[in-house]
């Protein structure tokens, strides 16, 4: 009798202990991002640290090829099978939110005021109707990459400070044999980063702005816009400092730069790693040129953010936000910079003089203070509008004024149909 009582007690203790441990290890959340080696390794490491600090939560990390990523998210979440925490480009946010793929971050766990204070200002593009839908670990800006060896051979001492200098340098670095270019000054690429350059950099430098404050009206159709647009298309049409598709393929402009055949490119900080490991010559980075010395500076900022999907409910939601807070913490951002080479999204970290004085990161860091993220509603379609505006001029000899006007109308239609 006693023995069976003891045995029953022992059984209860074992059961209770088992229940306790399983309750602790009960929450499993899933994180999704696209395939990119250094990012996968970084997240794996961050998950390890997070799980060590939060024994009750297990994070499953899944990745997909970039081309299939949106498709995977698009079909999985409605089926209830997808991620709890998902990584996305900020430009996709409005369509994802509208289609019900994301939920706002609970304000008791992520304080919007705190985020406004702690993160660089462009992070506010992740806010819709005053609610944050996600946070970035890292942010990116644009800068001018230049081939120091080609500059030296052409007797050019410094990277250009103004667009006029940029054109002069570009001409010196362009080599043509017959109807063929063997080297170009500027790796022009309308569908690379140049559509951002026109919309966010050149336009603002000329004193214009792309959209109304509520983001519903296209304003780039004015004289500043046309001036910016014409200046850009003239690089090909008038000055011949480059041609699109000089090197074919996805990111051909970057490949051509790495191959030493292109003097200058404008690219994002995300390209640093590829250029560093590929380029076999001396290269440098400079802040983007301006209209005139002392003139207005402008830059395009962008980021990937981590958001929460409707699949994260109850304890999973809490665990997901905890994880999101961890991978966007100062500690994680510092690690991310070392491991992936992307700029931290917290203001406190980019003030570090070691970073702003760095010859490669410095120009990007300096640009962050004035960089703006375009408030896209349909990133792919809006990108195509500018790319097509440029291509109409470069490939079909359409008058820039006419092409630019068409672009404005096309883009207004996109905004109208989103906000209808």
């Amino acid at each position, binding site marked *: 009798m006693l023995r069976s009582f003891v045995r029953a007690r022992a059984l209860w203790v074992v059961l209770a202990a088992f229940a306790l441990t399983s309750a602790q290890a009960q929450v499993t959340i899933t994180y999704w991002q696209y395939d990119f080696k250094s990012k996968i390794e970084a997240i794996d490491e961050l998950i390890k640290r997070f799980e060590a600090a939060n024994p009750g939560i297990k994070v499953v990390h899944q990745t997909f090829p970039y081309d299939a990523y949106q498709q995977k998210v698009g079909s999985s979440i409605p089926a209830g099978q997808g991620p709890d925490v998902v990584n996305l480009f900020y430009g996709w946010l409005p369509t994802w939110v509208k289609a019900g793929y994301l939920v706002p971050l609970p304000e008791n766990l992520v304080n919007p005021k705190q985020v406004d204070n702690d993160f660089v200002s462009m992070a506010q593009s992740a806010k819709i109707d005053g609610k944050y839908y996600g946070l970035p670990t890292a942010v990116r800006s644009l800068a001018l990459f230049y081939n120091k060896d080609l500059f030296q051979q052409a007797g050019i001492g410094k990277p250009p400070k103004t667009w006029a200098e940029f054109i002069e340098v570009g001409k010196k670095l362009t080599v043509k044999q017959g109807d*063929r270019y063997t080297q170009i000054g500027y790796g022009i690429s309308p569908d690379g980063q140049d559509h951002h350059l026109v919309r966010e950099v050149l336009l603002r430098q000329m004193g214009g702005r792309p959209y109304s404050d509520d983001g519903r009206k296209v304003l780039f159709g004015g004289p500043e816009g046309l001036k910016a647009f014409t200046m850009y298309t003239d690089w090909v049409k008038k000055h011949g400092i480059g041609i699109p598709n000089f090197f074919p393929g996805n990111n051909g402009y970057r490949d051509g730069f790495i191959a030493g055949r292109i003097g200058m490119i404008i690219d994002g900080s995300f390209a640093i790693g590829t250029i560093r490991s590929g380029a076999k010559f001396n290269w440098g980075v400079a802040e983007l040129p301006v209209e005139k010395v002392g003139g207005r500076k402008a830059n395009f900022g962008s980021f990937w953010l981590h958001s929460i999907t409707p699949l994260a409910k109850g304890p999973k939601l809490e665990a997901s936000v905890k994880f999101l807070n961890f991978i966007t913490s100062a500690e994680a951002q510092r690690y991310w910079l070392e491991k992936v080479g992307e700029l931290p999204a917290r203001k406190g970290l980019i003030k570090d003089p070691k970073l702003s004085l760095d010859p490669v990161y410095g120009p990007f860091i300096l640009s962050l203070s004035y960089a703006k993220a375009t408030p896209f509603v349909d990133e792919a379609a809006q990108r195509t509008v500018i790319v097509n505006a440029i291509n109409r001029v470069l490939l079909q000899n359409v008058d820039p004024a006419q092409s630019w006007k068409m672009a404005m109308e096309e883009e207004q239609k996109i905004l109208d149909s989103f906000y209808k």
Partner: protein
Amino acid sequence: MKRSRLSLATREALWAYVFLLLPLAFFLFIRIWPAFQALWLSLYDWNADPSKRVFVGLEHYAQMAQDPLVARSLRNTLLYTLIGVPAQLVLGLGIALLLNAVTRERLRDLFRAIYFAPYVTPAVAVAWVFSWMLSANFGVVNELLRAAGLPAQDFLRNPSLALPTVAGVVVWQNLGFQVVLFLAGLQNIPRDYYEAARIDGADGRQLFRHITLPLLNPVMVFSAVIGTIGFLQLFTQVVNLSFTDQGGPLHSTLTVALYIYQVAFGRFDLGYAAAITVLLFVIILSITLIQLRLLSRRVEY
């Protein structure tokens, strides 16, 4: 012992049905059911949460009629098909006839393998190689044009050349499959027919017109139908030949399938995408039925 009351033939037929049940279930649930779901989906505004999908009736179909990119992609798709299908049939048949004339079997197998290789090469690799070969500055194709005294062309960037160029790449890639089909068809034609005709004094052209072509008809029909469906669904090569400006330059290479993809997964507007899918389905179905009607002829000797 009790004997089964079913005859052997009935039992065999029953077994056949049992074995057919599995693929039938597969087609019903994996192919046909989703197709009907697309029809249903096209009547709603999409939301990840099914309870938040709003019924909009035929609104997406009305939107389609107003959408210039639907019109553009339909026109492009039609052009791809009109260029691609005849080209791959004629070239495929031509090469198959040449290969059929090669009497050493080893050599013929080798050629056949060479022609088939592009068909099994990943589209990404094909796109990469072709974009270099066709490059205005570095490409071998333009090297040849210049040698012939012709002006260089930026094949993939010129809005009026891009579509035929992409169609050409697709034809090149499909050619091997066509050749293998035609070669099998040619080898199935009994030699006796040719010999008999030759004894009656028929010349080469007559042999081709009255024996080869009619007896190849089933293969032709199959190739034409499969080829047409393939071109109407064209997607992979278009995406890869202009990756950062998909369907470009200036929408000149955009296909219906690619546009559906962009609307569905670039914009998460799956309701509208489903409506365009229904349109594509109706087009493919009607063209295929018409083709089967017009092309199929029973030939018996």
